[in-house]
């Protein structure tokens, strides 16, 4: 076999996967090698599938794997040479206009192959960095603005029929719920109303191809290993809440429901597991009287299932808003697991937003923005103040906390140098069954700058909760029973 090089490549690829948190064992690499021998190298997609089946253990790992695979088994080297459409030379604006036109055309025709080619072309023509060798997907996508091709593609797909919602500018991406179907002309079919959504996901796919292309080209310039370490996006589950952009948050939101389902299943199975297996000695002895003192028929103690009352106290100021919003949405999705769920939000003063969270049926609803607009969460100061927030909570809402209540505080404990008001937190702790503080900052940056995490963590349990995985572990372990 000419596979000495191949083995090394498999090992290097596995090492890269490990650095992104995947547990790839030696036996997995051996399996991967066998898979390559069986499948051969001719069909790249089959090779990808085969390696994935040997190296992966769960589906969440697939996104990372795909990116790394593309780096270690690139489709080709250098610029693509497959037949390319004519493009104007020179001015970048002309180029992007021409590209956008081709994009709209490919979108309208559902032409996946053409889209893939266009992604490569987009990077080639718009993504080259000016000052150093290398490529930037962000720059290319910025210049192209692919989402602006949606309206154009819609028009081409159904010539003659008007798009119902009369969008003026092509740049508007408002979309959303309903689009009145039909401008009369032609007969728009029922399912055409999904067209815009379909186009949007096609654009998202296109963006991913441009990013993949950028990684491939950069790997040639700067070395595969480096790109595999720095340019591969971690799976959603291990991405930091605090460094998440709005696109990440959208992706995160999409994981809430499957996550909530899994957590709910785990919580209720833990409850069941705990309600069996405990022998009630007293009852067993009494029963054994009828068998002459031999405990033939053991009696089990029935534990009353405990559904906690949950009170969320969330910092919704800019920096941690994403984390709070995600956790709120997750708790709402899990709300059947609690006897009651009440949510309070603060920037510097505290106000109840339970109704907003519970009514937010659609995950797209932005609870945080609504709360900032309609509730009294902003006091006189500008930045978040934990002291003031805790104070106003104990003053007005302390009756929400009782002996069955688990209080979750979400925030980074950065007080903007205000007074910490330990007594308020102590008052909450004394009245609750359990108080846990989830902090989206890594432990090492606690107590730096204006963070008073150390002071608060002396009063209540404080956990680092930087990503979905940590949040999931916390909910599964601590919140049950």
């Amino acid at each position, binding site marked *: 076999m000419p596979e000495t090089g191949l083995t090394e490549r498999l090992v290097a690829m596995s090492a890269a996967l490990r650095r992104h948190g995947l*547990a790839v*064992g030696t*036996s*997995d690499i051996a*399996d991967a090698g*066998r*898979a390559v021998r*069986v*499948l051969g190298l001719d*069909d790249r*997609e*089959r090779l990808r*599938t*085969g390696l*994935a*089946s*040997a190296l*992966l*253990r*769960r*589906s969440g790992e*697939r996104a990372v794997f795909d990116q790394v695979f593309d780096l270690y088994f690139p489709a080709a080297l250098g610029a693509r040479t497959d037949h390319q459409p004519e493009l104007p030379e020179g001015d970048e604006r002309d180029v992007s206009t021409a590209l956008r036109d081709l994009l709209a055309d490919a979108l309208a025709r559902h032409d996946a192959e053409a889209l893939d080619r266009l992604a490569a072309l987009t990077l080639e023509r718009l993504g080259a960095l000016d000052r150093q060798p290398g490529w930037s997907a962000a720059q290319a996508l910025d210049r192209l603005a692919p989402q602006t091709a949606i309206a154009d593609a819609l028009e081409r797909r159904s010539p003659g029929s008007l798009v119902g919602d009369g969008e003026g500018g092509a740049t508007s991406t408002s979309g959303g*719920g*309903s689009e009145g*179907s039909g401008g009369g002309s032609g007969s728009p*079919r*029922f*399912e055409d*109303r*999904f067209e815009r*959504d*379909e186009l949007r*996901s096609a654009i998202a796919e296109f963006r991913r191809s441009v990013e993949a292309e950028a990684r491939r080209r950069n790997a040639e310039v700067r070395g595969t290993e480096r790109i595999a370490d720095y340019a591969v996006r971690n799976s959603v589950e291990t991405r930091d809440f605090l460094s998440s952009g709005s696109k990440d948050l959208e992706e995160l939101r999409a994981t809430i*429901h499957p996550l909530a*389902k*899994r957590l709910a*299943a*785990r919580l209720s*199975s833990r409850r*069941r597991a705990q309600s069996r297996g405990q022998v009630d000695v007293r009852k067993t002895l009494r029963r054994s009287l009828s068998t002459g003192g031999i405990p033939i028929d053991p009696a089990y103690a029935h534990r009353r299932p405990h559904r906690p009352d949950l009170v969320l106290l969330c910092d919704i100021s800019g920096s941690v808003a994403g984390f709070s919003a995600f956790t709120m949405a997750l708790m709402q999705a899990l709300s059947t697991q609690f006897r009651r769920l009440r949510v309070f939000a603060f920037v510097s003063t505290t106000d109840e937003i339970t109704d907003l969270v519970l009514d937010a*049926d*659609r*995950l797209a609803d932005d609870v945080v923005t609504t709360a900032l607009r309609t509730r009294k969460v902003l006091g006189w100061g500008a930045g978040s103040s934990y002291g003031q927030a805790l104070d106003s909570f104990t003053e007005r809402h302390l009756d929400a906390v009782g002996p069955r209540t688990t209080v979750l505080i979400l925030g980074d404990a950065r007080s903007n140098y205000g007074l910490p008001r330990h007594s308020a937190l102590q008052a909450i702790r004394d009245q609750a069954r359990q108080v846990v503080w989830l902090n989206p900052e890594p432990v090492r940056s606690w107590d730096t700058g204006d963070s008073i995490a150390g002071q608060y963590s002396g009063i209540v349990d404080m956990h680092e909760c930087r990503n979905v995985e940590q949040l999931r572990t916390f909910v599964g372990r601590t919140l049950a029973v």
Partner: protein
Amino acid sequence: MSTPFSSVDSTRNGLAASDYLASDAIATTVYLASTLGKPLLVEGPAGVGKTELAKALARATGRDLVRLQCYEGVDESRALYEWNHAKQLLRITAERESSWDSVRSDIFSEEFLLPRPLLAAIQSEQPVVLLVDELDKADEEMEGLLLEILSDFQVTVPELGTVTARTHPLVVLTSNATRELSEALRRRCLFLHVDYPTPDLERKIVQLQVPDLAETMTASIVRVVGALRDMNLRKSPSVAETVDWARTLLALGASELDAETVKSSLGVVLKHQRDVSTVIADLDLDRVLA
């Protein structure tokens, strides 16, 4: 061990001949699992055809399907083997005269063993397909029981010793990921994530199952179901529901998919009343009909 398939394409064709349209990824992984002799762990949302894959695999290879359906509390005596107490008692009464020693050695022989699915699979004279369905529903001890079988194809019965497989079964494990399976188990398997099929493949599946439905109608149905899967529903429609819907619409004699048809037949696709009302609100069906 002889491999049942000679290539990825023959795997795909074999499955297709058994009425299972496999994506390239599925065919590739199944081919690998059968060639390398490794168990296949299949995960994915409910209703995408994980169990169906094992059944089709049995049909395609002409093997018997041995199925172990897991549930909470499934144990050794349900999964592996049990002693046939009644038969043992009969034997004891029949042999009143003989000595204790001979009876004792007799009644713990294979004759009195009731093989349950796992033992049956490895004892079988002919190679079989072993399906361990919904493994995530079973308790963790169940996984421990499986490890010996999955890596060495043998089972240890205390009274008998080790029973080694006569043939090499093709093993398919399915899971909906309600519980995390152990690393030890995952390490022994090839992993396959089955997701909802691409629109193209789903159209073909519907056409295969409901051949009388017009092609445009099939396309419309698949497209709408695809959009429903993107909504935030408690239970997203699976392939089975797409097929059900196609059958229903065929029976209703609907010639095109309009708001009214959709509204009146949504119950076939969605299993929760709340989902139905969400979709009606999201698609503005009431307003369109008004």
